[in-house]
């Protein structure tokens, strides 16, 4: 590698370098200032992520670095900003709650920063090896934070379950990658696409592709690889669950989009049927399985499975509008999810116990009117009711699917979103029409800020959506 190429590579991956070096520095600060340093390290971690996000958003330059292993294009830039915002907000959510949940150790923000580094590597991966390494860096940190409250049986169980299933899915994905490498002779996405466009694809390559897609679908918790989601969401401490639902989903969806629309772009017909099946199964399971849930974190888990199904509808189209729909869907999904988790974290009794049952929200409109209004807006948005943000998210993916003549997929999707509306509206009914069961403790300022901003985004999307939609279109142009 010449000095010129090296400096270009360093320049392109500067946000990653900032996060990596910053995480090491935070670790040192934490170790040398002792156990009381958790709040300070958390604040520094947020500052570090903000610096990286600003760098990604502002600094010009694009192209491939590190010998083709790393790519920075408008798509990567957009998804990185979204993932970083997700991580910043999720760490912020943990800030006031850490001492109640025994998360107040300085390692917690450090591991989250390292996980975010994994997401950035994953989003920028242009090679099967960096794809795997990014995924593993992200997931390994997530296993640790899921089990972070080690005195809680549920948290430990969640961490262990996630670890065992995640290791299995990584193994399957590596097997698939080795098959893809064996049948194309390359690990780079560009080279794989070149080989596939000139040669007839073999059966072994299809096997490899299926395994790679299965690994990515595990991370976004799409059916039939969703089994871990409800248990892990329920067992992990709530700020950790919020973190799970934000950045990692965005990053895993980004690599799924990149791998099918770049490496496997010459064999659209082969991967489309897989994505269509996964999308239909996720939408149906997400809507029907959530109906009976009593725990609101489990409910959110099934809701996120359903949302991943809708996002994949756009990917199944395999067109520029489809990918742009996916990008937009993930952005809106992340904002809605973070707002909802801020509300869930606000469900704390005066004695410090966190309530997690759906029933506990009864009569929220009379005890906490502001939170009730925001949560209602978020639920309507998740159900896809116009003119809220969630409606536009669904609209763009379904338009893309209809343009690609995937009529059956679109019809099933719209019908399952009707089923899904039931449980979102049930929450609204509980909040507004049932008698209150008890008071919640005073809500912290950060939580109010997060769900306030999220509610504002959802309501005002009609007005502010234009620039976001244009940025998503520009991001999707990277592939076509």
């Amino acid at each position, binding site marked *: 590698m010449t000095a010129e190429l090296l400096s270009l590579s360093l320049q392109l991956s500067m946000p990653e370098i900032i996060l990596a070096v910053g995480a090491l520095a935070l670790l040192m600060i934490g170790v040398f200032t002792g156990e009381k340093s958790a709040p300070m390290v958390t604040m520094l971690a947020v500052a570090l992520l903000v610096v990286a996000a600003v760098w990604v958003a502002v600094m010009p330059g694009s192209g491939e670095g590190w010998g083709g292993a790393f790519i920075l294009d408008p798509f990567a830039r957009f998804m990185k900003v979204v993932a970083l915002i997700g991580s910043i907000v999720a760490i912020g959510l943990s800030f006031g709650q850490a001492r109640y949940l025994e998360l107040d*150790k300085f*390692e917690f923000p450090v591991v989250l920063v390292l996980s975010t580094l994994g997401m950035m590597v994953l989003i920028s991966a242009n090679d099967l090896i960096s794809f795997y390494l990014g995924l593993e860096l992200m997931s390994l940190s997530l296993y640790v934070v899921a089990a972070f409250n*080690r005195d809680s049986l549920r948290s430990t169980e969640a961490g262990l379950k996630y670890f065992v299933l995640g290791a299995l899915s990584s193994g399957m994905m590596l097997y698939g990658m080795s098959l893809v490498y064996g049948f194309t002779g390359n690990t780079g996405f560009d080279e794989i696409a070149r080989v596939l466009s000139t040669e007839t694809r073999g059966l072994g390559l299809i096997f490899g592709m299926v395994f790679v897609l299965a690994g990515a679908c595990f991370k976004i918790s799409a059916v039939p690889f969703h089994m871990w989601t409800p248990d892990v969401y329920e067992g992990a401490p709530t700020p950790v669950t919020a973190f799970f639902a934000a950045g990692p989903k965005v990053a895993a969806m980004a690599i799924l989009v990149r791998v099918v629309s770049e490496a496997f772009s010459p064999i659209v017909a082969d991967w489309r049927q897989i994505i269509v099946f996964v999308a239909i199964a996720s939408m149906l399971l997400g809507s029907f399985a959530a109906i009976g849930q009593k725990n609101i974190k489990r409910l959110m888990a099934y809701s996120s499975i359903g949302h991943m199904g809708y996002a994949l509808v756009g990917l199944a189209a395999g067109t520029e509008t489809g990918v742009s729909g996916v990008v937009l869907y993930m952005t809106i999904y992340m904002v809605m999810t973070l707002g909802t988790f801020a509300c869930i974290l606000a469900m704390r009794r005066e004695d410090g116990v966190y309530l997690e049952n759906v029933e506990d929200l009864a009569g929220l409109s009379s005890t906490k009117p502001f939170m009730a209004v925001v949560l209602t807006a978020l639920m309507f948005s998740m159900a896809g009711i116009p003119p809220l943000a969630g409606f536009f998210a669904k609209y763009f993916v379904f338009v893309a699917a209809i343009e690609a003549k995937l009529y059956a997929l679109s019809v099933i999707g719209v019908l399952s979103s009707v089923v899904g509306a039931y449980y979102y509206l049930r929450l609204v009914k509980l909040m507004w029409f049932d008698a209150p069961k008890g008071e919640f403790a005073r809500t912290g300022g950060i939580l109010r800020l997060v769900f306030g901003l999220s509610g504002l985004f959802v309501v005002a999307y009609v007005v502010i959506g234009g620039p976001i939609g244009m940025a998503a279109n520009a991001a999707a142009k990277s592939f076509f």
Partner: protein
Amino acid sequence: MGLQAIFFYIFAFVAIAAAFMVISAKNPVHSVLFLILVFFNAAGLFLLTGAEFLAMILLVVYIGAVAVLFLFVVMMLDIDFAELRSGVLQYAPVGILVGLIVAAELVVVIGGSVLTPEAAKSITMPIPNPAERTNTAALGDVLYTNYVYFFQIAGMILLVAMIGAIVLTLRHRQHIKRQDISRQVARTPATAVEVIKVKSGQGL
């Protein structure tokens, strides 16, 4: 038969014999020691094929770290090996089946490369001739240049594993006597020794 062939047969024979002893030795410590012998002979076989880097890694990682860890585990955990071994005959059919499958796969792989020699041409990065370039140097050439990005991320992954292991298992216990070197060094005869006058007939 050249010198190389003689060494190959020595290494191969000892490796297989030691591997057999690993599963048949009565004492688990002997099993681990035989496992180390297997690793040594495998390293010798790697050396014969010109893969000296793999051979040295095998010595350092498998014998230096993994086998020693095995020894610790075997010696420190109270495992009833006699009971573990009691069902050997019961599992023998499954073991034989697995062995047959592996043997069949070996035949398929080797047969495939004999029948279609052109399959080897699909390798895009051929191994350099060991006479011109040792494979340690060849690995070093790419590991810190073309693959430096992967190398660094792998390092971060290991760091996460380390932090995770510590944060999930380390407990700061309150009532443990720890060595405090500065206190030990600062001791003087005045603080360390106490002279007591014992009155006769009373004792302490």
